[in-house]
């Protein structure tokens, strides 16, 4: 065992595989956060007056608020004045196709193996499954593909900055309606300084003809990322949205405070899948992204459905609870999560299922995998309002431990105010078994491949919820995240 431990430690010390930085001149907002910063961002984006006012209102509110401290996280103090709030690649004119994209950016994507390089898709080769990529490089959308085809279907898929200019009424109708400005400290901050993000509108009765995908990437030193995503599925509409991200290696912590709002009207369905691989920091917990994300869906319509699937492997600190407000009668909320923590990573993640509508149903499947000296907490709320008859919830939380120095915690909150509700909660915690490891190794797999195989099996229920485009990437990622974690 001694040799295996040494091997394991050597492998743990392996550098973050995708840690490289792209050399592109940045156009920065002045350092620090003030009303001037907010005005600068708004002006940079040629925003209308109402948008600036909305931001300023949020900023003033934020100044009166405190960062939350209830999560099981140890968050170092963040100096909000010692950061930049806006950066865009120096590329002024908008481009018509990805061929015109800065080659440096293209190379970065290619190193990451991002499907944007799928030339056949870009060239519109028939038969290839189409993935529209609204590529967000740092804070500005530098390229948007397939806009025309989507437009023909009536689907609006734009950067949120463009949407604010081109579809102000739609944006204004829903922005901040699911996650109000005052929702929480980080959401309020985002409302004030969000730099860019994505807007999707799928009109009544339309099934979006392709999976929509945005790749986020933090690329500027000390630049906080404040993405804002708003997806509205009108009556009977369907859309599947993929969000994935990796970040280059940095020594200084980077704050990421995104807000995602989803709205599903009658009979509409939104499937939102995330693979999160921000830089997690080194083996001593130096560096890494602070990921404070507010994601919430409003299932407003009857029979509406929202399904969140997340594979969280990155970030030094993850604070994230993709939730569903199940307001519509017979609406459905789902949350499938794999959260991996290694080394010194901390994750406090889970979901909230707020049952307001009669007959609303929710399913929660959470798989936590802890290794190294990390801490991994599932925190989930199931709330049933007094008026919500016939609600059903099923929750399953499984934790897998890969070391004896890591932590796994399950914190369920169940608030039921209607006696007709059926709530089920199952939880397990187990340590990866030596029998399994030896069995797999005796068949020819090395220690890392054996761990990856067993962990992927453990997470299978969640991984199989991912669209094919993501499932393979996610499986690889689980293995990479846990390299050398067994000793």
């Amino acid at each position: 065992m001694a040799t295996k431990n040494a091997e394991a430690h050597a492998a743990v010390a392996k550098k973050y595989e995708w840690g490289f930085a792209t050399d592109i001149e940045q156009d920065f907002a002045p350092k620090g956060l003030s009303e001037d910063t907010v005005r600068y961002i708004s002006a940079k984006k040629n925003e209308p007056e109402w948008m600036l006012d909305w931001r300023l209102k949020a900023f003033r509110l934020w100044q009166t608020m405190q960062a939350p401290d209830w999560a099981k996280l140890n968050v170092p103090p963040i100096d909000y004045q010692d950061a930049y709030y806006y950066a865009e690649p120096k590329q002024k004119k908008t481009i018509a196709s990805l061929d015109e994209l800065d080659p440096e950016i293209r190379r970065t994507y290619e190193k990451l193996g991002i499907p944007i390089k799928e030339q056949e898709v870009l060239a519109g080769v028939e038969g290839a499954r189409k993935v529209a990529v609204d590529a967000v490089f740092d804070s500005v959308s530098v390229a948007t593909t397939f806009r025309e085809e989507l437009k023909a279907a009536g689907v609006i898929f734009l950067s949120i900055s463009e949407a604010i200019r081109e579809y102000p009424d739609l944006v204004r109708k829903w922005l901040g309606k699911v996650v109000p400005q005052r929702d929480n400290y980080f959401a309020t901050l985002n409302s004030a300084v969000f730099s860019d993000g994505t807007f999707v509108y799928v009109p009544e009765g339309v099934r979006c003809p392709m999976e929509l995908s945005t790749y986020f990437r933090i690329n500027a030193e000390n630049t906080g990322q404040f993405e804002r995503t708003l997806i509205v599925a009108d009556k009977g509409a369907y859309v599947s949205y993929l969000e994935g991200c990796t970040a280059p290696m940095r020594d200084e912590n980077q704050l990421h405070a995104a807000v995602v709002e989803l709205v599903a009207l009658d009979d509409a369905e939104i499937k939102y899948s995330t693979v999160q691989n921000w830089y997690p920091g080194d083996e001593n917990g130096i560096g890494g992204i602070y990921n404070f994300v507010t994601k919430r869906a409003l299932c407003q319509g009857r029979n509406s459905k929202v399904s969140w699937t997340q594979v969280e492997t990155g970030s030094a600190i993850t604070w994230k609870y993709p939730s569903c407000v199940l307001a519509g009668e017979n609406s459905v909320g789902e949350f499938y999560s794999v959260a991996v923590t290694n080394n010194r990573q901390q994750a406090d993640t889970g979901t909230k299922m707020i049952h307001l509508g009669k007959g609303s149903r929710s399913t929660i499947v959470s798989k936590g995998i802890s290794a190294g000296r990390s801490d991994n907490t599932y925190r989930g709320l199931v709330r049933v309002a007094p008026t919500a008859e016939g609600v059903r919830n099923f929750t399953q939380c499984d934790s897998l431990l890969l070391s004896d120095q890591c932590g796994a915690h399950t914190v369920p909150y169940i608030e039921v105010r209607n006696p007709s509700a059926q709530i089920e909660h199952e939880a397990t915690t187990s340590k990866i078994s030596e029998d399994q490891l030896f069995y797999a190794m005796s068949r020819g797999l090395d220690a890392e491949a054996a761990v990856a195989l067993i962990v992927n099996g453990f997470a299978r229920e969640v991984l199989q919820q991912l669209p094919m485009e993501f499932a393979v990437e996610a499986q690889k990622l689980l293995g990479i995240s846990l390299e050398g974690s067994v000793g």
Partner: protein
Amino acid sequence: MTMLTIDNLHAEIDGKPILKGLTLQVNAGEIHAIMGPNGAGKSTLGYVLGGRPGYEVTEGSVTFDGEDLLDKEPHERAAAGVFLGFQYPVEIPGVSNVQFLRESLNAQRAVRGEKPLSGAEFLKVARAQADALGLQQDMLKRPVNVGFSGGEKKRNEMVQMGIIDPKFAILDETDSGLDIDALRVVGDGINRIMRRPDKAVLLITHYQRLLDYVRPDRVHVLADGRITRSGGAELAHQLEREGYAEVAA
């Protein structure tokens, strides 16, 4: 030609000596049976040869194909051609048999510098082996050993052996938990897969009955961590008649 040489092997678990100077030689083309009472160290021998962590070799050596076997990690032993059939095959939830075996086999092939088998190539091999061992095809898609009966698990070990096609197999109580029909199928499987001039088998068993189907070239009695007696196939019958206490003393 000598395939495996075990010389004066001493091994312990948690400081407790189990193997106490075991010496054994297996040539290519031979099937050897290791028999012995409970607690003699039979399974320990299998695990030590497989490289299980926690089994500390304190003295002696094991040479396989002219190389030091004990120096290798378990997966390197597999790639070198050693297969360990488990007495209690392990469940791996969420991982299909097909995925497990294809990844394992391709990992071995990579070490040996062979190109990986494609999904289709692999499935062809896997299906043929499952058929030969009377295992339902859908078993290949099910998670490894999850929900399998004892007999199915043992058959599955043989399917794995057939797919991996090793040079040398250590089969630890593969006969336990099998009814008489399954015993025949497994026995036929061992003969079909392993009875070759360039292969060898170490059959670890408590009972003689598997040896009715797989005729050993040599039979060894393992007692208190050492080989106390060796002989031909007839020794197994003698053990069955007279008991270990009598024969091994």
